């Protein structure tokens, strides 16, 4: 375990250094991820100027988006397509450690580049932030990171079977945008759809931490949200392990 954590740290450090040469690309990548929440913030603030927690919601959503989005369709699917995954298979550790390290490095870059955008938005909007709500949302944010990582990983691993992994991951991102509370906050969904969306993995990955941080949920809703996050984490963990093992078996059967 200690060795695995150390290797993840090494890979994170290496990827962080490696991506330093892609600074310009990273800036556009991070800003691209900011567009939707910032647009939602602008539109909903104008549409419902009295709903102050909506502004808080979208700023929180921006933070959640920056902390949970993963580019695994590039960082993992491309080595599968190129066959360079075989280089990782002959290293004396699980190839997934490299992927985890890459994701940590990616997170760090997103924080470094995204933090000024979040700060600017907080400064300009002067939204009320309740510390207790923010603290209550932090575990949900951590769980959202893990659930979205596993969800994106499972989709990216389809690269073992199809050349369309980029499209599949993009489809997942679209569903997350539509049902996860980015296009419209889930609280504003019509009722039957709302309860479906609240129990969906998309809310667990995106909208829930933002809704908690903005104080939009009562205690029962928060508890239920955490319960759904735990359920989806378990589901995606099982799915990912099965897909990973099956994919590697296929890769080692056909030679990449």
């Amino acid at each position, binding site marked *: 375990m200690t060795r695995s954590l150390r290797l993840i740290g090494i890979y994170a450090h290496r990827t962080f250094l*490696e991506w330093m*040469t892609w600074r310009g690309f990273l800036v556009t990548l991070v800003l691209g991820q900011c567009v939707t929440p910032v647009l939602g913030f602008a539109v909903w603030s104008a549409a419902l100027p009295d709903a102050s927690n909506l502004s808080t919601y979208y700023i929180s959503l921006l933070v959640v988006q920056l902390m949970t989005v993963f580019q695994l369709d590039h960082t993992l699917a491309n080595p599968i397509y190129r066959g360079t995954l*075989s280089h990782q*298979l002959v290293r004396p550790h699980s190839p997934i450690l490299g992927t985890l390290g890459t994701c940590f490095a990616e997170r760090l870059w997103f924080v470094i580049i995204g933090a000024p955008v979040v700060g600017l938005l907080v400064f300009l909007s002067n939204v009320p932030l309740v510390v207790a709500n923010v603290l209550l949302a932090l575990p949900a944010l951590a769980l959202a990171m893990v659930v979205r990582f596993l969800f994106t990983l499972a989709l990216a691993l389809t690269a073992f079977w199809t050349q369309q992994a980029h499209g599949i991951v993009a489809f997942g991102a679209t569903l997350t945008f539509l049902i996860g509370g980015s296009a419209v906050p889930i609280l504003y969904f019509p009722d039957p759809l709302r309860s479906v969306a609240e129990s969906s993995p998309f809310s667990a990955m995106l909208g829930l931490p933002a809704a908690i941080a903005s104080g939009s949920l009562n205690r029962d809703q928060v508890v239920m949200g955490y319960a759904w996050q735990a359920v989806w984490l378990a589901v995606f963990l099982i799915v990912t392990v099965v897909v990973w093992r099956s994919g590697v078996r296929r890769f080692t059967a056909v030679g990449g």
Partner: protein
Amino acid sequence: MDRTIHVHHLSMTYRVPVRQEGLGAALRSLIHRSYRELAAVDAVSFDLFAGEIVGFIGPNGAGKTTTLKMLSGILHPTGGDADILGFQPWKRQPAFLRRIAIIRGSQPIGGPVELTVMDSLRLQQLIYDVDDRAFKRNLGQLNAMLDLRTLLDRQIRALSLGERMRCGLALNLIYRPEVLFLDEPTIGMDASVVETTRQFIAAYCQETAATVLLTSHYMADVERLCRRVILMDKGTVRYDGDLRTLSERLSPYKILRVSLVGAKALDLSSFGEVDEAENGTYDIRVGRRDVPSVTARLLADFPVTDLAVLEPPLDRVIDRAYRTGVA
């Protein structure tokens, strides 16, 4: 000698989709796909011993790279077994992977190309648990053999192909693997880099007693490094043994290279088949048994200034083996 690699009836059969030409067949294949079994490697067996450098040769599609991938753990075979240093390769146990290396001439470096060579070496040190003392010692030796000094602080992406190969060798040997799988290590290199690489491989094996299985389409690599060759064709081993014996078996002749006084063209066809004639120097193909008598006749009948008895070029021997098989 210790046996390091034992391969027994190793097989790899791919299931490849096939269909007839035309739109109708394409539509039918959406519902009912047809497959054909393709035996890339078929019941291959051999043993390799510590310190051996063995040439693993054969035409394209012979199954060489597939075999190397199975022996390095990348591919899971469909049949047979292999034991390398006491491990089954495709289980990919860390203790096994720390003791082997696979180096491909087409992709000598598998890691990120944005890092410097030294950063990549340090990464290898951590991945393979090489302690600082051993790292410094190994790096010093690799540096001496591969002249890495001017490359260590450069990004991998900015290196030329030859420089990448030198760095790829250093990255894969910094942890001192005991078994090396070299897949076309000199592909695309210029003559001086090729020679450096060959010298390095020979020196590394002599020093560490590493076992090397080398595939190359350049027969000069094989001739320079390997006494033993395994000749593959259509997924099976056609010959496993001494390179010289193979040459003798496939080429029942030698080349007499004779230089005569004066540049006047002479008819030497009575001595054997004249392969080449240029500026008074002739290459005459002579049966192995006839070499002494033909040499004596040439020396008696002509003013010879130089004479050499040569083995036929290995390229031709192997080409003949590919085309006609090994009897």
